[in-house]
């Protein structure tokens, strides 16, 4: 666990250009605006944050599905952003992705068996082995192996996501970028899958970037957690530290908002006020200051930088200077 990080994200940025009208000049959605973190081998790094804060974009940049506007992504000591397309293609078997949308990420024209086989075919695994592995993978993710002969549209959402996970597991990758892999699953399967992911990690030393918005799942599965807000990381800490003493007001609000499966427990919630700012036009200073219950003057002007407050716990907030 003390080895060099498997993944290192160095100050990546992604600005999507967009235009309004024919004559206006180009503007940018700053989907990700300078994010840095690293994931050690065998570790699960949880990424939480509001919808649209750039989690998926970060994930896709690590997967090299989109080119960062700026910054570098290192994998296993290699700068992925500098690889030739062919080198990158070969490298891809080491990192796989589970997508957020189980409906659109499966080719409707392929059977489940073909979908799961696809990465193996791409990376030249022999047929017998593939056949064998399909049923193994299906069982692994809790699907009947007879489902291999069906098309994705014959499944309900949760079932499809399991197919997606089976596909990602097919090549025994080192890293899996799981973009909200369990949010479409019902609890019993979610727990199976979470357990499964953990088992896989224990057995094969897999490394996860686990994107989710369910803080309880994140808490359960992650070793370290990063909290994102409006394209920026605002707090990174290891699990216990984060949940016991969340530092950033945003993190505090997040944790207080998690619904508790107990009808009698009515908690005090930190309700955030105000609109979520647009990533095309982020506020000056601390991006959270517009909604922050503890904001003061400095927050509007100065962008907070990451500071270590506890060991293994950094935060970008002026409260802790």
């Amino acid at each position, binding site marked *: 666990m003390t080895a060099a990080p498997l993944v290192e994200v160095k100050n990546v940025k992604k600005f999507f250009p967009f235009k*309004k009208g024919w004559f206006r000049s180009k503007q940018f959605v700053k989907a990700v605006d300078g994010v840095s973190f690293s994931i050690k081998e065998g570790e699960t790094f949880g990424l*939480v*944050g*509001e*919808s*649209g804060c750039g989690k*998926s974009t970060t994930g896709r940049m690590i997967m090299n599905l989109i080119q960062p506007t700026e910054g570098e992504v290192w994998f296993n000591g290699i700068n992925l952003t500098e690889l030739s397309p062919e080198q990158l293609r070969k490298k891809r078997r080491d990192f796989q992705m589970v997508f*957020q*949308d189980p*409906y*659109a990420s499966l080719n409707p024209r392929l059977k489940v068996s073909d979908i799961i086989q696809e990465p193996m075919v791409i990376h030249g695994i022999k047929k017998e082995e593939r056949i064998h592995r399909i049923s193994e993978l299906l069982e692994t993710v*809790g*699907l*009947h192996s007879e*489902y291999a002969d069906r098309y994705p549209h014959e*499944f*309900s*959402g*949760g*079932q499809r996501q399991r197919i997606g996970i089976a596909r990602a597991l097919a090549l025994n990758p080192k890293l899996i970028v799981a973009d*909200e892999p369990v*949010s*479409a*699953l*019902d*609890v*019993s*399967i*979610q*727990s*199976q899958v*979470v*357990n499964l992911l*953990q088992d896989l990690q224990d057995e094969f030393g897999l490394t996860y970037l686990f994107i989710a*918005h*369910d*803080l*309880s*799942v994140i*808490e*359960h599965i992650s070793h370290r957690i990063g909290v994102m807000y409006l394209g920026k990381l605002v707090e990174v800490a290891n699990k216990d530290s984060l*949940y016991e003493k969340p530092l950033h007001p945003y993190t505090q*609000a*997040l*944790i207080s*908002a*998690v*619904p*508790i*499966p*107990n*009808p*009698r427990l009515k908690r005090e*919630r930190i*309700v*955030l006020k105000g*609109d*979520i*700012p*647009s990533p095309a036009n982020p506020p000056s200073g601390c991006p959270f200051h517009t909604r922050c219950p503890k904001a003061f003057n400095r927050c509007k002007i100065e962008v907070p930088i990451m500071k270590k407050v506890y060991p293994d716990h950094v935060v970008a907030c002026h409260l802790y200077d």
Partner: protein
Amino acid sequence: MSKHLLEINQLKTYFFGDENVVPAVDGVTITINKGETVGIVGESGCGKSVTSLSIMRLLKHTSGKVVDGSISFEGKDLLSLSEREMRKIRGNDIAMIFQEPMTSLNPVHKIGRQIQEAIEWHLKYSKKKSMERTIDMLKLVGIPRAEEIVNEYPYQLSGGMRQRVMIAMAMACEPKLLIADEPTTALDVTIQAQILELMKDLKAKKETAIMLITHDLGVVAEMCDRVVVMYAGKVVEEGDIYTIFENPKHPYTRGLLKSTPKLHEKRDRLGSIPGNVPSPANLPKGCKFAPRCSQVMEACLEQEPVLKKLNDGQCRCWLYQSDSEKEGVKNDSSSLS
């Protein structure tokens, strides 16, 4: 108690495939009262969405068909209404939020237009007024820069934003019954909290009844008055919220609760229900849950129990059936496992 707003009685919706018939919904009975929030929970594929589509009568363009049972809404038999009368109800009296935010919005129309349309249609608002309401609705569900978003296309939004758009669309006409099929699944917690507040508000103000389909028991605990637990196309347990969480009867309900991760709860592994949901094409003979049940008995494998009214709800399990029905299979649940 006033008359039920929605009464689903012994609904059976089957899909007719080329080789087999899939009984996706197989005798479901649910009632929802005015202003009440009923949670429907159950594993993926157990027929929750199909039940809701049956209510909306949106199965026409699939191979699915309601083969038996009745659905009455405010005393009207929805299944026998003409398409025209049904249209007046859809989107207006009963609105629906779909599960798939990515594909449920038309990719080639602007967000604003898609919401505005229903407002114009049902509330007979002018273009301008309906656009204003659209923007209000979007703001209400926490969409930033709503004035600009109305002129954007779905692909420009993240999944969560799209789902909020869907919610705004469904709530725009202040329906009497809102069917929300996993409305907050794709959302982050702060927005989820906002939306849940919003739905509660709506419920309180307009007495909107909500049929909340979800698998997040936390959401259920927070929102619902009653809970219906479904498994393999059937209702297996029904009861008020406290009963379900504090005194669950059915082994399946218990399993579900155990599988739910809870904040600040340090567990190495989550509890989980073993096995798979049976494929609807070849369901087990007796109780559909029997193969995965930790308390399975001989009777479970032979005959399906009925949904029995208990003092605090209903449950479909041999554990709670009367002695005469149980006969010799009493008390040896563990011997068979």
